[in-house]
């Protein structure tokens, strides 16, 4: 028997905001019947972009239903921008914690919310392509990598708890273990072999790092970044969208972009902004 908190039990037995909204401003659907759980989240916003109404429908276990119900309570009355910042850990914490094997229920909540907000903004979901590693649950290497990084996962078991990968036949456990190792090895030993890079190699690696590590984070805040030029150790970039007008752009560049590029490309890089 699972150890559920009183709050989980309460949200399961008396779920808040169950149902459908006839004309929602944002809808996010994740999961499937085959996977064993699914969530459809709908909301409307008022003129100030505050979530005015929210409803959910969930197929799944008690913690999936409780996570969905908790999420609706958490985002009601918040602005879309505020709601967007909610993480799966926030959902679990709101419920007083979830059994670790059930963390994927909170991840499902976060994913549905993300989808609903993208839908509200009229944006397409960025393709998480890559190669399918876990055939049972259709999880790709990219998705596993991202989850390992975001949630600092160390073991196959944890990856399974968070995104289900490896929870079926178990044949992909070695592959998942390799991905986990790769993520941490990359973080540790990345600068080593980069010494003898040609200019073209360096530019390619910078572009790859921007795409993989930096752009997704900036895009969350409605901004982006573009590589303009590379001259020796100097990397010239242009900030786009909200980033361009953001007062904290200097900090973003130095603390985030430069740090990532130093980590993944070369430790001597210096990032300079090119203004329009």
């Amino acid at each position, binding site marked *: 028997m699972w150890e559920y908190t009183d709050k989980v039990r309460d949200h399961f*037995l008396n779920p808040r905001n169950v149902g459908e909204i006839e004309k929602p401003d944002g809808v996010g659907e994740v999961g499937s*019947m*085959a996977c*064993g759980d699914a969530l459809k989240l709908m909301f409307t916003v008022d003129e100030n972009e505050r979530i005015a109404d929210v409803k959910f*429908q969930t197929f*799944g276990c008690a913690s999936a239903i409780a996570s969905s119900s908790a999420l609706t309570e958490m985002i009601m009355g918040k602005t879309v921008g505020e709601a967007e910042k909610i993480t799966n850990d926030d959902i679990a914490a709101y419920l007083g914690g979830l059994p670790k094997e059930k963390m994927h229920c909170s991840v499902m909540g976060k994913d549905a919310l993300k989808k609903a907000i993208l839908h509200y903004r009229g944006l397409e979901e960025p393709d998480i392509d890559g190669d399918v590693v876990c055939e049972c649950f259709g999880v790709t290497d990219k998705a596993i990598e991202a989850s390992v990084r975001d949630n600092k996962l160390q073991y196959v078991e944890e990856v*399974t708890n968070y995104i*289900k990968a490896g*929870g079926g036949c178990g044949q992909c456990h070695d592959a998942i273990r390799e991905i986990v190792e790769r993520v941490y090895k990359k973080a540790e030993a990345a600068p080593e072999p980069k010494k003898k890079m040609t200019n073209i190699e360096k530019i390619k690696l910078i572009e790859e790092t921007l795409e993989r590590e930096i752009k997704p984070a900036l895009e969350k805040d409605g901004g982006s970044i573009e590589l303009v030029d590379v001259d020796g150790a100097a990397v010239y970039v242009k900030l786009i969208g909200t980033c361009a007008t953001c007062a904290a752009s200097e900090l973003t560049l130095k603390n985030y972009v430069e740090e990532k590029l130093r980590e993944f490309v070369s430790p001597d890089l210096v990032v300079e902004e090119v203004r329009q």
Partner: protein
Amino acid sequence: MKTIYLDNNATTRVAPEVVEKMVPYFSEYYGNPSSMHTFGGMVGKQIMEAREKVAELINADPGEIIFTSCGTESDSTAIHAAIQSNPKKRHIITTRVEHPAVKNLCEHLAKTGYRVSWVPVDREGRLDTDYLSQRMTEDTAIVSIMWANNETGVMFPVEEIARMAAEKGIAFHTDAVQAVGKVPVDVKKTDINMLALSGHKFHGPKGVGVLYVKKGTKFAPFLIGGHQEKGRRGGTENVASIIGIGKAAELAGKDLAGGEMDRVRALRDRLEAEILEKIPNTLLNGSRENRLPNTLSVSFEYVEGESILLMLDQLGVCASSGSACTSGTLEPSHVLRALGVPFTAAHGSIRFSLSTYTTPEEIETLAAELPPLIRKLRDMSPFWKKEASCSTQ
């Protein structure tokens, strides 16, 4: 709140008569049955009596009964005995729907170089006996087929399969943990070489099992140690539990002879009929005919098993599910998947298993409480379309 216990395939209530019989062997009669003195010897006599009672329940000779610690140990002992006594044979036949006690052992042996044939079942859970007979070869060390399935209650024609195996000189073992006490088992007239059973599945205590080994069957002990069980299972006897399983076997024999299981069957059938009639989009898992009298496995489409169980728990009803969330893995039970139950239904599977302690009132209460409970969960489910319910009602 009164508990309505409908999870008897998981474990059963220990009969009060059994408890009563056991208690003195925890306290005043603590002697070692192997001792030479009267104080211990008296305990040894009680164990002999228990052995006779268990033998009687399955119509074996007392000398063919080995006491073990559980059903799993009995299964493991049987399979290891067969492969050790036939060191040149490297092939095992079993089914896709075995209990983990056999399934996981065979998967383990497959990794150590044994070839394992997994006999499939059809949509109703019936065994493909043609597939099975074709796989029996000179290299086959053992055929291990469960008597009755713990999840669906479907029974296999083990007597017929045992004969097929005997004709080819292959050892036959059956995990009869779910069958013994619920249906008549008579090993004397069959070719079954080894049979595993467990005390706590028929109102005996936990922590005691039995392995029946037919006279003349090649055997090798699994636990090697003292001379207990005639050297076939080392280790000081679990005295109180062995005496308890003896009493439970005696009671089970009486219940079977007295038609108690027919009463259980009638209750199960009533529950089944009520559920299928009152709740649309509900499927029965497993064959209706060849089934244990106490087991009912149903799938409620569009809802998930753990949610159903937790809501039932609020009502004091104990049942179990083959859904992913309850199995501790992320996939629904291997048994339901082997049957080809679609994922849409496998996640919403619930097993009710009755016992002679189940009352008609309990079944009535459940039959009344279940439909609104399933409706509540379906109303929450994004897959539940109102029209789906209309079309099948």
